[in-house]
């Protein structure tokens, strides 16, 4: 098992290398190259342009630039953002917690609703509840995340005004942006208010992500549960007179959960995509929103950094899913 994990991890390295190479080559193909943000700016003198080109080392041969960038990604500060005057690593590092917080919350809400709903639907097959879940999952599956977010925003923030329109915290309350040192001091003094504030802001974006996920996961849980509930060992458990509760929970559910765990793990990259979309709608100060800001300005080093981190996250989630699969299904040997 450990051997499999190590091997699987080592396989990531060539993929990651190829990703950096393709990203870099792709960016060179952009009209104006990495300098796109300045190349077509008529208000800028050629001297100023040349100074920037020189400062970011963009006048060197492409191969050298690539090696510089790669070493900076592996050991350094990921180069400096064009417009923020800060190392890319710090800029991204400041937004990553917000994204992960949103993803985790959405994930918990999603599974807390989807799994029980799927189990109940399977146990009461063809009941009104089951049909309602099926209908919901068909609609939810086709629902574009961004439009769902807009609708929730329209209903709960604009019409009824019970939820905030944007952001992760109320700056009038905290006096400082999320996770700055000032905010952290404020938070340590007002923990309860602080938690409530974040929860109040996170509820709409998290539910937006969760609804689409619930549609898929509840359906998967339902079919997995239906598969196991008709197995012989479940009938045996019933036949020997076990209470229904223990038949369902101990015999059927535990086996039905195995494929669900894997399926859930394989959907983590989707959760990340959902977070990216939702952040753009709710002005959530995470990596997704940062990406679209960087894209508007064409902040080349920052864009490269975010794409790199996103790729790393997805690779990591895939690794996690593969490992979950290996652990969950003892019938497959990974010697």
């Amino acid at each position: 098992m450990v051997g499999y994990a190590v091997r699987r991890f080592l396989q990531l390295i060539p993929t990651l290398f190829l990703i950096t190479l393709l990203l870099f080559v792709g960016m060179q193909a952009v009209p104006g190259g990495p300098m796109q943000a300045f190349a077509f700016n008529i208000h800028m003198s050629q001297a100023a342009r040349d100074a920037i080109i020189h400062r970011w080392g963009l006048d060197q041969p492409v191969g050298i630039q690539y090696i510089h960038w790669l070493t900076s990604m592996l050991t350094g500060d990921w180069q400096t953002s064009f417009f923020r005057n800060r190392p890319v690593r710090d800029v991204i590092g400041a937004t990553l917690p917000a994204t992960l917080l949103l993803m985790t919350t959405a994930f918990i809400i999603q599974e807390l609703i989807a799994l029980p709903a799927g189990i109940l639907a399977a146990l009461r097959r063809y009941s009104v509840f089951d049909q309602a879940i099926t209908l919901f999952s068909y609609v939810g599956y086709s629902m574009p995340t961004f439009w769902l977010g807009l609708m929730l925003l329209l209903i709960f923030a604009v019409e009824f005004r019970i939820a905030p329109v944007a952001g992760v915290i109320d700056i009038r309350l905290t006096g400082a942006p999320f996770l700055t040192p000032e905010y952290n001091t404020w938070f340590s003094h007002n923990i309860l208010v602080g938690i409530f504030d974040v929860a109040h802001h996170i509820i709409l974006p998290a539910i937006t992500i969760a609804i689409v996920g619930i549609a898929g996961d509840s359906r998967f849980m339902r079919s997995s549960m239906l598969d196991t509930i008709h197995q012989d060992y479940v009938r045996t458990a019933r036949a020997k007179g076990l209470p229904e509760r223990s038949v369902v929970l101990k015999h059927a559910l535990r086996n039905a959960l195995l494929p669900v765990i894997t399926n859930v793990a394989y959907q983590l990259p989707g959760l990340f995509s959902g977070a990216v979309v939702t952040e753009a709608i709710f002005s959530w100060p995470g990596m997704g929103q940062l990406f679209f800001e960087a894209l508007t300005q064409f902040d080349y080093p920052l864009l490269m950094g975010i794409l790199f981190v996103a790729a790393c996250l997805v690779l990591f989630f895939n690794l996690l899913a593969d490992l979950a699969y290996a652990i969950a299904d003892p019938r497959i040997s990974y010697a």
Partner: protein
Amino acid sequence: MLDARQVDVSDDIGKKAYPDEVEIAFKQYSFKEMTFRRFMRHPIAKWAALAMLIILVACYGAPIWHLLFPNFIQAPDQYTPADAGTGPSLKHLFGTDSFNGHDIFSLVLYGGRLSLMIGVGSMVIGTIIGVTWGAVAGYLGGFVDALLMRVTDVFLTVPALLLVPLASRIFGQAEPWHIAIIFGLLSWPFVSRIVRGSFLQLRELQFTEAAVALGTSPLRIIFRHLLPNAVGPILVAFTLGVGSNVVLEAFVSFLGFGLRPPNDSWGSTLASAQEVMIQGNWWWITFPGLAVVATVMCINFIGDGLRDALDPKIVD
């Protein structure tokens, strides 16, 4: 799969007057007929297909509807400033925008043309690339397969949600065809995965072996022997891809990296609606979005029906 023939003993055997004249009539269905019959048996897919047809006719016929009902359907360059910012009414089914008084219902109809064109156009490009890529990888296997699939992995790893806006921002210049090509160039990897998977299975089958033994050229084996047998999964992937690209176009344009007016699409209509959403013009952002949802739901149901109809493992 192509050789499967459905055998149907016709009803009129018993109606023959003389037993010695009885001919047992075998009705043989072609692959297309059989798929169609199985598709129509799906409870929702046929209604989704009908709804999709209505959407297509409504959108692409918009200029005709405009000529027929000039008071009701406005061309994109027409507007009634007096009605600007009004909610849904009989005259303006979906309300009007609050800038000039464009009729949202007309905008949705006209905008559907570009949204659907991008969805279908991009998947035509994506499917051609994906099928070729996956076919070569799956048929040759070995080193070539490993190399091609690593490249596919890269495209599947960097979220398309980031790559597509990036490419649209750079190469799109708000030209519908550029956007369609960009979407196509970024949606082939998942098709190629599917094609490669089927090819890896198919090339081990005996009819491939026979074709190789007869000295058939690899190209002919790929396109004449293997590809027709993989058409089911490809068709399903194509259908679902159209749905997800319609959503992606809406999102990318909504963020301002895709189409912009006067290139009206559902996404570009949503983008202009966003600015005034806070004022409570709910109709402007609701109805173009509902058009996206309805379309994608139809496409997903059609994909579901196709999957069932084309799956050789499901027996009637």
